[in-house]
């Protein structure tokens, strides 16, 4: 058993996917998530950032057992759910997907999309109760009752994302994985949705895993942030600590690469521009996976994988040369 500090916890989570290619009968795998451990406290938002292909979305989905983990353990509220029947947990753990255009069935009305979740978990006592619940959850996300009879194509992107959120909320979950919930939306609409996530958290005590590649939004909404690179967590810290006092060379370059929407600051700031591209996760570099792009890399980094250690209270990083970097 584990202590109940965390609502959700993963230990040494691994998710490998088989890939085609290579020689005949040769089996290759993509190590999408490799030995990732973290916990999310009740009522907290943990942000997960990284570039495409770093495994952040896979982590979120594996955590909900939408993919079966290759190895490792997942706990929810102290219960090991790695092998459990998920149906009762699906009511407590929900997900909001990235693309509001693809994640809603175009042939179902919004009322049915939300109602389906209520039906599966037998949450409505009567037809009238079901209808009331649908309307109440729609109003929670800023839509109204007449929207229940419409189809997804009749909505704008921001409204569709609200429907996606309403669907997740319909079963009164405790925990929601938000997988890039605003990246498909226009800037002026993003703020609306971000504010709504914050409001819902305050009112309903929700816990979020907020996955995005946009660090400024993740920093805004999260209490703590984990940074991933090629299937590994490289740094984890309080969100302000991470933005202003990051210790890992990858996090540092990631932060400096973000164009700041302030001409004066951006003229003054010096960018650390990383050379090269992210290597393929099928053939990740030996030792530290960041070493091929890291300005501090040496033989040690190639030979040995860096240890995940606590550099200050609650601030973790995996790098051989923390003293040289900082």
């Amino acid at each position, binding site marked *: 058993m584990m202590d109940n500090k965390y609502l959700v916890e993963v230990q040494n989570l691994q998710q490998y996917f088989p890939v085609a290619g290579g020689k005949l009968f040769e089996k290759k795998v993509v190590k999408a998530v490799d030995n990732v451990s973290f916990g999310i406290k009740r009522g907290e938002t943990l942000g997960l950032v990284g*570039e*495409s292909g770093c495994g952040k979305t896979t982590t979120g989905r594996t955590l909900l057992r939408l993919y079966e983990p290759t190895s490792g353990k997942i706990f929810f509220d102290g219960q090991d759910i790695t092998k459990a029947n998920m149906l009762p947990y699906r009511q407590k753990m929900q997900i909001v997907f990235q693309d509001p255009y693809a994640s809603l069935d175009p042939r179902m009305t919004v009322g049915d999309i939300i109602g389906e979740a209520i039906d599966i978990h037998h949450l409505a006592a009567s037809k009238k109760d079901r209808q009331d619940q649908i309307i109440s959850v729609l109003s929670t996300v800023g839509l109204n009752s007449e929207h229940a009879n419409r189809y997804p194509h009749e909505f*704008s992107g*921001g*409204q569709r994302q609200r429907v996606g959120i309403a669907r997740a909320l319909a079963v009164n979950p405790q925990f929601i994985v938000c997988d890039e919930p605003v990246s498909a939306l*226009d*800037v*002026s*609409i*993003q*703020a*609306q949705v*971000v*504010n709504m996530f*914050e409001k819902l958290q305050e009112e309903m005590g929700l816990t979020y895993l907020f996955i995005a*590649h946009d*660090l*400024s*939004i993740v*920093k*805004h909404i999260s209490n703590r942030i984990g940074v991933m690179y090629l299937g590994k967590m490289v740094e984890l810290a309080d969100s*302000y600590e991470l*933005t*202003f006092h990051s210790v890992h060379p990858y996090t540092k*370059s*990631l*932060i*400096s*690469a*973000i*164009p*700041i*929407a*302030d*001409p*004066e*600051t*951006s003229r003054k700031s010096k*960018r650390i*521009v*990383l050379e090269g*591209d*992210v290597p393929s996760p099928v053939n990740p570099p030996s030792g530290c996976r960041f070493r091929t792009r890291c300005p501090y890399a040496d033989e040690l980094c190639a030979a040995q994988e860096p240890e995940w250690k606590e550099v200050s209270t609650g601030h973790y990083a995996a790098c051989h040369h923390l003293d040289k970097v900082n």
Partner: protein
Amino acid sequence: MSEYLVNIENERLSFFTPAGEVKALNDVSLHLREGEVLGIVGESGSGKSVTAYSLMGLTAFPGRLIGGSLQFNGHQIEKMTEKEMRKIRGNEISIIFQDPMTSLNPVYTIGNQITEVVMLHTSKNKQQATERARELLTLVGINEPQKRLNQYPHELSGGMRQRVMIAIALACEPKLLIADEPTTALDVTIQAQILELMMELKEKLGMAIIMITHDLGVVANMCDRIAVMYAGKVVEYGNTDDIFYNPSHEYTKGLIRSIPKLTEKEHNKLIPIEGSPVDMLNPPAGCPFAPRCRACMKICLREMPEYTDITDIHYSACWLLQKEEFERQLSQKGDA
């Protein structure tokens, strides 16, 4: 010759769709001097790409230019035939598209696609063109250019492909480079590489750039001037500092308020722009931003405001400014 490299005046362009006329551009005026970087920002559907494409004569069916004048480097674009246009396109003016995955031809080698442009616009033969292609690949920072010439787009990463796109666009040293969301499909660290490269090449070759983006961070970094577009109108135009530190249109203000700032040390709530983007099939009468505007007045719903000059360069279309201007004139009269 005018003092501007690009001078668009009162451009009107509509898409005649089965559902009705969509006025994608409604009286757009923009100008740009040689060697300047202009950023066009706005949300999807605001007309930023359509403006830039029309300058290259690339308006897609069922779109049609219905009015205005487009001047570029002494050419009157709207009067040119397709044949004349082809001589300029890729030569004096070229473009980088958003998605490098789909804008390169998958069945031709990189070398093929670069030499095509060179041979079309110059008198170089195949061998000289290949030499030029190798030069260009080196220029955009691709290692082992000789090997890359014989590779196909699928063998390269996203960042590399975008570098190849830039090489193609720069093949004839254009006067104007249009970059349509050149880094939106790329990761942040790769985006930083590409933006750096573009600025470096601009210094080296002295071309002007029109940068189309929705990322205010990118324009703050790169641009000399910014045009903010909303529903087919330029609602505000000015120097980068004017737009960020002295925004005068309510939409610009809202846009700047609504983005989270990485450098902020405390948690401030975001202030979103309420409402939904404009339905371009049924645009509101008057100012298109009025239904979402915090300071909306009666007149805003009826009539579109004229531009008010704030400085020589900075101007904006908002009734609030007209009101201030009017009140100032009144008080001056009173003083006299």
